[in-house]
């Protein structure tokens, strides 16, 4: 585990800034979600838009966990991003904060399973798994997924896994290796 596994005000500001940065970049991608919803509604697959975009929404968590390597960073990164989104005109209002907390816990669980000892592809696979399952369970209630047919649920689950693995896995890995190569992280 990291030697300086304590929170300093600098880390807290950094996490909140990253959360807001991601929020700002994604404000520009809202049209993707809306466009997908419009395109998928006539064929009865509108919820798929939610699952396709899920990876984008959870990116802040794995990234924060990989950058700071402090227990709780994954949760806090994701949660602060959600709080920021709530204040600055997100689409979902108060439920953003609840979703953020659930996503945060689900991501953090992936890091917890490694005991915070290693940070590699296995970690990313674990966070992808835990966040897929965690967010999906929440959507069973929030978005009424429980009413869908098993075939539809399976499709949604697979798409969600791929989306989270692409954005919260591959893209996060690419970003962190850029950061590693530039030696800007003082660990």
């Amino acid at each position, binding site marked *: 585990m990291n030697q300086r596994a304590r929170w300093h005000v600098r880390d*807290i*500001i950094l996490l909140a800034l990253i959360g807001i940065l991601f929020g700002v970049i994604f404000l520009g991608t809202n049209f993707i979600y809306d466009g997908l919803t419009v395109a998928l509604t006539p064929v*009865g697959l509108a919820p798929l*838009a939610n699952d396709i975009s899920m990876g984008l929404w959870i990116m802040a968590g794995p*990234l924060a966990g990989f950058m700071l390597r402090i227990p709780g960073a994954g949760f806090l990164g994701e949660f*602060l991003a959600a709080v920021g989104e709530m204040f600055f005109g997100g689409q979902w209002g108060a439920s*953003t904060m609840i979703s953020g907390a659930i996503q945060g816990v689900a991501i953090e669980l992936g890091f917890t399973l490694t005991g915070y000892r290693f940070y590699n592809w296995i970690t990313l696979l674990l966070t992808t798994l835990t966040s897929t399952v965690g967010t999906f369970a929440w959507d069973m209630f929030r978005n009424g997924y429980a009413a*869908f047919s098993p075939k539809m649920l399976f499709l949604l689950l697979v798409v969600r896994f791929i989306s989270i693995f692409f954005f919260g896995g591959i893209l996060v890995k690419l970003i962190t290796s850029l950061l590693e190569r530039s030696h800007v992280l003082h660990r």
Partner: protein
Amino acid sequence: MNASLKLLLVLLISLEVSFTQSLSANLILITGSLFYLMIHKTSFRSLLLLGVVPFLPALGLFVTIYYFSPDHDLHFAWVLFTRMYVYVTAGASFTLTSTPLDLALSLEQNWHLPSKFAYGTLAAFNMLPKIKSAIVTIRTAGLMRGIVLSWWSPQLYFKAILVALNWSENLAQAMISHGFVEDQPRTFYRQIKITIIDYSMLIVIILAIQLPIWLLP
């Protein structure tokens, strides 16, 4: 109403409607939230935006549940449609009537959130306008060299994180040089109190909403 209690109320309501299926309760909550927003003189434009923003996702859910789910349940389709609006209007009754500063001060003084979290996140949230322009700058700088940095390119995030690293260092230094010491007791110029009225409002509203949620369809 005290900011953190208001947030708690909104979160409790949002959680409860996520797990229950009462159309009339949803409609009452939407009306109540809109009424609350109107008392607080919210502009007509913001109210209109609240109607437009959740429309597409709500419609998408409605169509999927009513036309494409095995049960074709019209009532549940309407519940999900209105639920989106409960989230957004209830959320707006908090976000449009309280500032991040109100919330940070209340969480620190009333709920003993460590001051480094309260002021650290507040410092970052106040940078929002600068963050927006920083991202525009990064993208434009890329374009000038003929490189398009789209939202899926790692370089965009990398450069944005470099900016964040720099700013977090500067902001932390600025706070320390203004006398902020982590984990030290602080005194407050602006005192935030939770009054008995705040508590009773929270309890009365929560109790009042149980009736339609559990008794009406």
